[in-house]
């Protein structure tokens, strides 16, 4: 029979028995029990603490994905239902057809030569979906090749040739440096110089932003992968690559005066007008890294003498407003990759996937809760 357990506050009436002399099933003496209870407490609290640390709730030093998106959100007003970055855009669709040269580099089905259906989105940089197009230095193209099977490939490209920063921590610091002071509506004038002092290579991006010509259309803009990826061919051979969608439409610069006069939504209107004349094409130009090229640093461009290969042609035939288009509820995560394409160790790539997931979850939740009317209602007079 079991002894009744001593109450926790009662001192032992007799010296504690030796551990192996206990009757099977007997409760332990008080000190042993205390130790056991303490051990259980340590295990439970320690596990909970480890869980909280892993989740980013404790041990505040490292940058987490929610913090990264939070920093971006804090730089402007809330726009429920919209993407947190590149908020303004339009849906597009068409096809992609690969070339033999593409097939030689990667066994991705997109390069099979058969036309692959494409769903995409053209957008401008910035977190405000109502920004006028003429304020946007950065234009972007996101694409999804193929349907919901293993061969699906999503990519998110930008019109800049390289990134200002090489790490998500630096991106976060830059975002904070650009934060408008609520009192003045402008960033703290000391913040950006301090950021540049700590990240001098970001000046190269600012130089590009100041001097490179603006195009006057989405259709004649090049869109770059910026991050490097690995292409894996049918024999398992791997090569580091970056790619660009190079437009067939001739580049035409938007000069300062035209930019001043441009309509708030001139890019979408221009796109629609061009598509009415016929499909728009881009060549997917793949640049191969040479040994020693920086493949994990998106802030370092490769020399333009690197071998380039046209791996396929993108054709866009249709555009529609994002509020009601198929691209609205797509997360163009650049790490949704088919066999034949793999990520490099570029830390920005991993951070993009993490950040886009946060943005997607937040905006889908807002729409589901009925707060995303501006993002989902059919637009008037677009």
């Amino acid at each position, binding site marked *: 029979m079991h002894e009744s357990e001593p109450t926790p506050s009662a001192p032992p009436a007799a010296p504690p028995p030796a551990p192996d002399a*206990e009757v099977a099933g007997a409760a332990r003496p008080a000190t042993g029990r205390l130790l056991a209870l303490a051990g259980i407490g340590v*295990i439970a609290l320690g596990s909970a603490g480890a*869980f909280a640390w892993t989740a980013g709730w404790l041990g505040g030093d490292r940058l987490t994905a929610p913090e990264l998106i939070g920093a971006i959100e804090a730089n402007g007003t809330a726009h429920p239902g919209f993407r947190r970055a590149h908020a303004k855009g339009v849906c597009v669709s068409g096809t992609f057809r690969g070339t033999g040269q593409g097939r030689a580099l990667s066994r991705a089905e997109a390069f099979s030569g058969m036309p692959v259906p494409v769903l995409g989105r053209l957008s401008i940089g910035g977190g405000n979906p109502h920004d006028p197009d003429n304020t946007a230095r950065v234009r972007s193209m996101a694409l999804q090749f193929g349907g919901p099977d293993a061969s699906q490939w999503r990519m998110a490209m930008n019109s800049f040739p390289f990134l200002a920063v090489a790490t998500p921590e630096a991106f976060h610091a830059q975002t904070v440096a650009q934060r408008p002071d609520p009192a003045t509506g402008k960033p703290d004038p000391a913040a950006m110089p301090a950021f540049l002092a700590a990240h001098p290579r970001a000046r190269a991006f600012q130089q590009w932003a100041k001097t490179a010509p603006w195009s006057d259309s989405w259709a004649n803009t090049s869109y770059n992968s910026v991050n490097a990826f690995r292409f894996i061919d049918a024999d398992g051979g791997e090569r580091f690559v970056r790619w660009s969608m190079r437009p067939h439409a001739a580049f035409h610069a938007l000069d300062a005066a035209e930019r001043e006069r441009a309509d708030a939504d001139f890019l979408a209107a221009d796109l629609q007008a061009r598509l009415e004349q016929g499909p728009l094409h881009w060549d997917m130009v793949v640049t191969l890294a040479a040994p020693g090229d920086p493949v994990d640093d998106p802030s370092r461009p490769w020399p333009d003498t690197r071998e380039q290969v046209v791996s396929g042609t993108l054709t866009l035939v249709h555009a529609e407003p994002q509020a009601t288009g198929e691209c609205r509820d797509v997360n163009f995560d650049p790490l949704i990759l088919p066999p034949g394409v793999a990520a490099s160790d570029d830390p920005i790539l991993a*951070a993009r996937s*993490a950040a886009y997931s946060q943005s997607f979850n937040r905006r889908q939740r807002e729409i*589901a809760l009925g707060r995303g009317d501006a993002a989902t209602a059919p637009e008037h007079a677009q």
Partner: protein
Amino acid sequence: MTTPTHFNAAARWLHWSMALMIVSMLFIGVGMMASVSARPWLIDLHRPLGIAILMLAVLRLRNRLRSPTPALPSTLPQWQKTAAHASHWLLYGLMLSMPLIGWAMLSAGGFPVQISPSFVLPPILPQDVTLYAALRALHGWLAYLLFATVLMHVSAALLHAWVFRDGVFPAMTRGRDR
């Protein structure tokens, strides 16, 4: 048939292997949502491990329903027995529903349900914003519930092992004495 004093071999093997898998999944899950650097390899682990847990959970439930399980000691107060049984059924419910919710969530989000680089599961729901948002929230909250339940389960198990020493813990660590 007399009530056994120990869980059968299948139950024990499934218990300990799945315990490892489920605790890993919980940490992988919160880790991949927080991390700016580790998400790619964590999420590539999370999906196949989730499906593996689902398949093992089905086998485990079948084994549980078909084989008698040891009774809790008669000296255990009724409220503790009720709490134990309820928590075990909660654990079964969660280990079966969490992978399904994850699969449904990805389907509703329009994501390929990628288990390996060349194998995807078919979507089990159409793409839908409201369904995605609901399942995303559910997957998270039930994960926290599962973690809390696991912590209580482990704490109670260690109480039985180190304090009550009433044969409950050995029922899951070894087979019946011969």
